[in-house]
């Protein structure tokens, strides 16, 4: 409940939490003492990913969308790292090994590149249209 308490708290009250999350008993009494498992990371990853998507879907500011993208990428990274670390699994379960970390590394690198280009485009858009309001950039509509 603590874990989910955290996630529930984070979600703005306005967003109704789906009841299906009744999986609290699974985590034993005191999360403080029990070792962290893979599922926790997945949940954090999911939350980040969802926040990212929501941000992209919500923000009218181009930069807001870029931030959404960053969040999404980080959500993915968390999952990668989680799957690659041997400590979050039971003993001996096969993990991604270094692959996960390398992929996460590349994601970070390419995210940097992507951000650079995206910002360049946004700046251009801003210079040309004097606004970064994405809704105004609907020239390519049907």
């Amino acid at each position, binding site marked *: 409940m603590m874990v989910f308490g955290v996630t529930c708290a984070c979600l703005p009250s306005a967003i109704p939490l789906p009841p299906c999350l009744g999986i609290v008993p699974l985590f034993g009494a005191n999360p403080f003492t029990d070792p962290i498992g893979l599922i926790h990371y997945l949940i954090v990853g999911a939350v980040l990913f969802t926040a990212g998507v929501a941000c992209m879907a919500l923000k009218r500011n181009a930069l807001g969308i870029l931030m959404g993208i960053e969040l999404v990428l980080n959500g993915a990274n968390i999952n990668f790292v989680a799957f690659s670390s*041997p400590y979050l699994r039971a*003993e*001996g379960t096969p*993990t991604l*090994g270094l692959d996960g970390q390398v992929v996460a590394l590349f994601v970070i690198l390419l995210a940097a590149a992507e951000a650079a280009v995206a910002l360049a485009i946004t700046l251009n858009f801003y210079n040309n249209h004097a606004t970064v309001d994405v809704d105004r950039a609907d020239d390519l509509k049907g």
Partner: protein
Amino acid sequence: MADFLIGLGLPGWIAWSIAALVAAVLLLNVIAGGALVFIWAERKIAARIQDRLGPTRTGGRFGWLQSLADGIKLLAKEDLMPEGADGLLFRLAPYVSFCASFCAFIALPFAFDVVGQRLNVGVFFVVAVLGLEVFGVILAGYASASKWSLFGAMREAAQVVSYEVPLGMCVVVPVMLAGTMDLVTIGEKQAGWMSNWYLFHDPFTFVIFWVYVTCAVASVNRAPFDLAEAESELVAGFHTEYSGLRWSFFFMAEYGSMFLVSALAAVLFLGGWNGPVPVARLLGFSDGTGDTAAYAVRLLGIANLIGKATFGVLLMMWIRWTLPRLRIDQVMTTCLKYCTPIAAAMFAGVMLWQLFLPGGLVPGWGRPAGEIREGWLEGPGGLSGGIRSAADPAAPVDLVKRSPR
């Protein structure tokens, strides 16, 4: 520290947390004390360079309490906030900036194993955290809702970010020489005579040291590169609107990072805690033996490091009051057209040097730099066979092999 407390019968996690607190406080004092001393030193050196006396009346003979006076003044001053400023960001900026520089001290080894946390990616961590300082600057500039501060912030951010590239390259050279990013290891490698310092390892490292110094000065916004606070144009740059305690935090952050950068230079190139003369070794102490001897050696190491760091800071102050300020385009040019290319060239040079002259110019003169490698290189089966089979991943992989002393 923790073992000691555990020994006292405290539950493990409490022991760990107390030990962590102690270490944090110690480091905080280092920064605060340093700041005080350096403020005073700055005033004195500036005066001396400008052929005047500097503070003399406050606190004793040489006005050494001047910084205390400043501190009290700052504390007494009202923390103003400009009318259009973004409250949250305005208040947060100084702390972000201070935390960034303070956070870097975690991985800084003052002496062999006298380090906040011995990180395997120490060097990398320090450089990374230095990068975070920019946020503080930007937020401050932005939050103070004034055009000039925004400009100042922008310039400083641009400068710091762009100088991070050459800085990173310079830092990589000692890492390559040492074969690891762990600062403690790098320091260890330069034990022995002064000639063992990486500075004198080969001409390339010598040149790269000076490039490092330049980049360091620039990334800390000091002296010739202090466009952010260029009085004539942008008043006080990003922290124009700040006053009182918030301003002092910025100030402490600045001096802290100056000290950090100099200390890093010391560790990477000037042998860290190893003095020019291996006094401890000569006297037969070895850092691994008894506690008191270990402490004595460690104290000597700490003294060495702090001395070198202070020398670095004083060097910066010296430069500040001698060299004229560069224009923003000149700053950028030096970064992109001079520092980066030279760093790259030297990096290549060092690499080739390592390849062709592993033993150094005069074989045996200095301890060969490259002999310490991680275990897996020389292990059975050549390059790839060293690692224990992945069958039992749980078994701890002792990757760092202790080099024979």
